[in-house]
């Protein structure tokens, strides 16, 4: 296929060619970045919680004074344990994807000089780590004696289990076991490390700190009450949650059942990422609309060119060009225009990414998005030009002999 005659012909249509190329370039820039944004959202949604999500649910109650906490705990736990199929009921402060609880700024020294970042501290009663199903990768779980009574949010001397991400952040390259950190008067000593434990609202303080969390053992009571972790067979959990309000009302008639705060952990996860899912769906919708509009633009302009060049096509056919040659001509022409657009589009994609990085705390666009985006646009261009090119190939040679 000779490219030179095509280029010469295109020079006659500089404006239209430039328009289509620019449209392709814009589409390329938006396509690459939108796909990248979608990938980011999907990655957020797939954060590993480290807990045994399908088997867990949370029941929350409110509307009583902390002084009544121990009594409420006893009655609600007994009431929930009475539901058939419940394997365990434990008191916890919250679960991953549940409501925010225990976000504190910590320091690596007692004097409070060396700031270690803001982390989430989960507080749980005896049995709660086992119920959560966290995976220990170093050290040991808290022993019975580590579950101390609370006279504030945390025990003053806490033996804590940290996530791997937090350990790597605080003590890079070192074993966290035996290490300490502080939050004002509270002192934490690390006795174990789990592979994953995200903060309750992962991503709310940035992507880097999504797994800066620790678990602290404590006895339920005045400062740990009202949120109960249920463990059961995944198939039975929905029924158990349906029965829970009645069981709680019977066991503790004065408390208010918190319907919004009582869900399976899988539902907490689904609802937590609803926004990301909506955004990813919206971006996908925009991509589809964008490709469609671009394709329609190509169809429109190519059809115009075919009609405009009917006579020339007829002449070429009359002096020996095959239908295949004509088809090829329009396909090659489209390939050249799209290629031109892609070259500009790659630069624009990078520029757009730089802008997004500045305003939205996004990483740099990985290079492999560019060839994939280019391929998508080449395919789109070829598909769009196919119908007009076929119409061009169908022009009979006899057209050449007619004057308009």
């Amino acid at each position, binding site marked *: 296929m000779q490219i030179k005659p095509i280029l010469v012909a295109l020079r006659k249509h500089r404006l239209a060619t430039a328009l289509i190329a620019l*449209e392709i370039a814009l589409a390329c820039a938006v396509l690459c970045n939108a796909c990248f944004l979608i990938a980011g959202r999907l990655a957020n949604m797939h954060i590993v919680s480290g807990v045994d999500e399908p088997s867990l649910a949370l029941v929350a109650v409110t509307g009583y004074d902390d002084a009544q906490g121990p009594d409420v705990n006893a009655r609600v736990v007994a009431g929930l344990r009475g539901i058939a199929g419940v394997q365990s009921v434990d008191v916890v402060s919250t679960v991953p994807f549940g409501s925010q609880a225990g976000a504190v700024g910590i320091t690596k020294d007692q004097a409070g000089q060396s700031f270690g970042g803001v982390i989430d501290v989960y507080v749980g009663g005896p049995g709660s780590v086992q119920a959560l199903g966290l995976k220990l990768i170093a050290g040991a779980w808290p022993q019975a004696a580590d579950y101390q009574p609370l006279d504030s949010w945390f025990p003053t001397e806490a033996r804590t289990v940290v996530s791997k991400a937090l350990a790597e952040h605080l003590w890079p390259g070192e074993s966290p076991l035996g290490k300490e950190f502080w939050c004002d*008067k*509270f002192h934490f000593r690390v006795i174990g490390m789990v592979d994953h434990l995200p903060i309750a609202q992962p991503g709310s303080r940035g992507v880097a700190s999504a797994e800066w969390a620790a678990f602290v053992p404590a006895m339920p009571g005045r400062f740990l009450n009202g949120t109960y972790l249920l463990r059961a067979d995944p198939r039975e959990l929905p029924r158990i949650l349906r029965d829970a309000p009645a069981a709680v009302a019977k066991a503790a008639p004065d408390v208010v059942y918190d319907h919004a705060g009582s869900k399976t952990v899988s539902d907490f996860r689904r609802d937590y990422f609803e926004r990301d899912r*909506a955004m990813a769906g919206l971006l996908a919708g925009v991509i589809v609309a964008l490709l469609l509009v671009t394709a329609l633009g190509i169809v429109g302009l190519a059809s*115009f060119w075919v009609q405009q060049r009917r006579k020339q096509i007829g002449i070429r056919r009359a002096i020996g060009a095959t239908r295949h040659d004509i088809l090829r001509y329009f396909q090659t022409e489209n390939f050249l225009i799209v290629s031109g657009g892609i070259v500009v589009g790659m630069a624009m994609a990078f520029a*757009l990414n730089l802008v997004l990085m500045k305003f*939205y705390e996004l990483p740099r666009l990985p290079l492999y998005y560019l060839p994939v985006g280019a391929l998508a646009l080449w395919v789109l261009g070829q598909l769009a030009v196919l119908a007009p090119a076929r119409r061009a190939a169908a022009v009979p040679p006899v057209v050449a002999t007619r004057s308009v």
Partner: protein
Amino acid sequence: MFGYYLDLALRSLKRNKALTALMVLAIAVGIGACMTTLTVMHLLSGDPLPGRSQRIFYAQVDPDITDKEGQREPPDMLDYHSATDLWSARRADRQALVVDSRLKLHAPDVNLPPLMATMLSTTTDFFPMFDVPFQYGGGWSADDDARHARVAVISADLNLRLFGGADSVGRTLRLRESDVRIVGVLKPWRPSPLFYAVAGGRFSNGDTADFYGKAEDVMTPFFTGLEINDGNFQQFNCWGIPSTPGHLQNAPCNWIRLWVELGDGGKVAGYRRFLADYAAQQKALGRFTVAGNTRLRSLMQWLDFNGVVPSDVRLQTWLAFAFLAICLFNTVGLLLAKFLRRSGEIGVRRALGASRLAIFAQCLMEAGMVGLLGGIGGWLLTLAGLWLVRRQPAAYADMAYLDTTMFLATFALAVAVSVLAGLLPAVRASRIAPGLQLKAL
């Protein structure tokens, strides 16, 4: 002339229906995407108190003793000591302390189970200062504030839920363990955002949709609220651990907001001085470590500082405009094809005496018609888009409706975009040399 051009445009559009449909569709989709996001932006970035906002200010001082340099921003809220000092000095035209909390609410003479409600505790100036509309009764007096009176104002929502929307002034509510008398019922009131509760936006990572939630169910005098719900108050931040969680009056914590109304520039400068003097005095007394770190932002400055428009919404708006740009390029290309296809006809008309300007105007008229048709499609798509927004789980979702301004803006934008798209092709068409075209005929 206008009518004639219109007729020409319509005829031309009818001649190639497929191409016209393509252009209208491209404009409609672009406009639909743009107007959906713009309507949401308009809703979220508007002035919640039009006409009053420039007189409303938010006061900040820095009581955090761990902040040695005072280089960073002062905390978003005030500690109890500073808040009550500044409030009781009464240096502004109006001033209101604001704090919110959750508690158990029950209406003793209504047969409904107790529910968890949100309570706003504030002072008497809150209602006139923020122009809060009442359906029945009214706010409480300064005397009620001082006496810690057991009175309350409830929202229209709560009134509907508990009393079926009837005039409930004089009836009793049980807030936790205390009985309060209802003195006022609000009309439906939905400021966007819930400006007086905005704080901490800079720590929210762009996820600020919750600033657009509903107003509190029940409002009580400030000190009454602190007594009723003692032990259940949430700190914004602390620089030391409070001795009794939830009871923050003597705690090293920031948890109260102070809004003031200042009538003119002189008063604003005066209040700034007052804040600086107060901080200096507190430093002299040893309570503050820095004196210079005070702020007095106007309402809109405070909303800007908190970046109240969620970053997702801003991203969507950028995306929509990029999309519109692509649709624009598309339309330019198609219009060019359409106009140049009629080169012969235009050549004849030029030869018969039509001026370049006339050809140009006729082409633009045609482009404008495409825009108008695209605007209708865009309007329908905007309605569909807003319907989708309302189904999203965002706090502002229920407010996403197209108002008259945005309805008109839809058509204005559609026509503007299409005329813009038509400019270049129209110039090209008007430059067609009549001689050349006539020869080709």
